[in-house]
């Protein structure tokens, strides 16, 4: 198939992708703003009975270890925190996209969602080391959908993993991103960006999805967030939560040091804490998915 045909087919796949639910979309809008309050999240959750039921199920699950049952949305949101609420809402309405096996990357079903979740958690942890002010929950939200383009691109990359890796080893292509571009004329960050526009996600999320491998190219208001997600993405791959054949096949932008102070020991702690939180959140979300 020619590059042009590929691009037309990919554009069709983006158009055909399932939409986010209105409540998930609004949660992302709110949590991507620096000046929002938890009350805004609570008010939104109250409008959605299914999400309310899910949150109550998670907060009262054995994994949370509460002594007393929580029955109000306010308490549940306060206890779980914004990031859990956003994760549950996004997981619910992106299940179709996230649950597909990533054949083009030789990744298994569910691997993409785990990668997104680990990245979000790690980006949030990285945000605490920012030289300037960077709200950690914003970094979490920015990380949660950063690789969504892979859900679309995967089927167009089927059967290419071995030749892509060989090209990288032989120095014919710089990394997995440029290999995607040379084969399809597009890469997963561009496809994710197009999907984010189609979903009308906040501009900040669009920028992070578009530039998470080259955060220096993000527009100025989103740049620090793009770096936080860039580092969160790398930590996810280091932890073993990649998406398949492309894992570790990207470059670290070493100028992250302009925006973050992270020592060797702090990075080790970041990895440890992110792994622990990931295990906890993943177990809680699995409870939410039980029908």
């Amino acid at each position, binding site marked *: 198939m020619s590059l042009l045909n590929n691009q037309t087919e990919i554009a069709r796949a983006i158009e055909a992708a399932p939409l986010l639910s209105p409540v998930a979309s609004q949660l992302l809008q709110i949590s991507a703003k620096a000046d929002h309050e938890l009350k805004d999240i609570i008010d939104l959750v109250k409008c959605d009975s299914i999400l309310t039921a899910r949150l109550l199920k998670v907060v009262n699950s054995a994994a949370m270890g509460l002594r007393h049952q929580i029955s109000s949305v306010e308490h549940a949101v306060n206890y779980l925190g914004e990031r859990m609420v956003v994760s549950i809402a996004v997981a619910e309405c992106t299940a179709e996209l996230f649950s597909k096996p990533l054949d083009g990357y030789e990744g298994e079903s569910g691997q993409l969602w785990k990668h997104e979740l680990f990245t979000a958690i790690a980006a949030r942890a990285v945000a605490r080391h920012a030289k300037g002010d960077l709200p950690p929950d914003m970094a979490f939200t920015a990380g949660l959908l950063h690789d969504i383009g892979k859900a679309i691109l995967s089927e167009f990359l089927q059967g290419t993993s071995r030749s892509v890796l060989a090209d990288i080893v032989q120095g014919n292509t710089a990394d997995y991103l440029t290999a995607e571009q040379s084969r399809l004329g597009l890469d997963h960050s561009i496809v994710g960006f197009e999907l984010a526009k189609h979903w009308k996600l906040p501009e900040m999320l669009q920028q992070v999805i578009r530039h998470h491998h080259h955060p220096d190219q993000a527009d100025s208001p989103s740049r620090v967030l793009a770096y936080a997600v860039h580092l969160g993405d790398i930590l996810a791959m280091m932890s073993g939560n990649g998406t*398949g054949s492309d*894992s570790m096949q*990207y*470059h*670290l932008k070493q100028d992250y040091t302009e925006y973050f102070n992270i020592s060797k020991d702090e*990075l080790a702690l970041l990895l440890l804490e992110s792994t622990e939180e990931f295990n906890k959140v993943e177990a809680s979300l699995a409870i939410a998915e039980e029908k």
Partner: protein
Amino acid sequence: MNTMVLGVGDLGACNSQDSEIKTYALGSCVAVILLDPKTRTVGMVHVALPESKINPAKVKERPGYFADTGIPILLQEMAKLGCQSQGKGLVVKLAGGAAIMDHNDTFNIGKRNLLAIKKILWGYSMGPRSEDVGGTFSRTVSVSVKTGEVILSSPGRPNWKI
């Protein structure tokens, strides 16, 4: 075939001959594999970080998380199964310790893991007989207790042995 699956920071030993020990997706983590040819006992620890001093509280819960606590406890677990071999009597194999492309020193936890592991092994007069470490790809490792064969896999690559 029974499979003992080890998560991050887990360790385990086994002498049941119809079993294998497996750990998935080692990124910067390293699998330390110990084989005792005398008793046909196999042990593995999935090390995530070099030194336990960064979070001593974690040691109690999961000593295998760190090189300096994981290897001694793994040796104890093997001894519980009757493995008396020490030092050069044990065959050591290592896998993992990958890094992202263009990493700096801070992000090369894989290398720090490997250095810490080799230092601890050295203290026991042990060293790896074979290893598949470093690089920029993740590895899944399985060891057959019966044959001691260590098989590695990675998405997009044919399986290989060390």
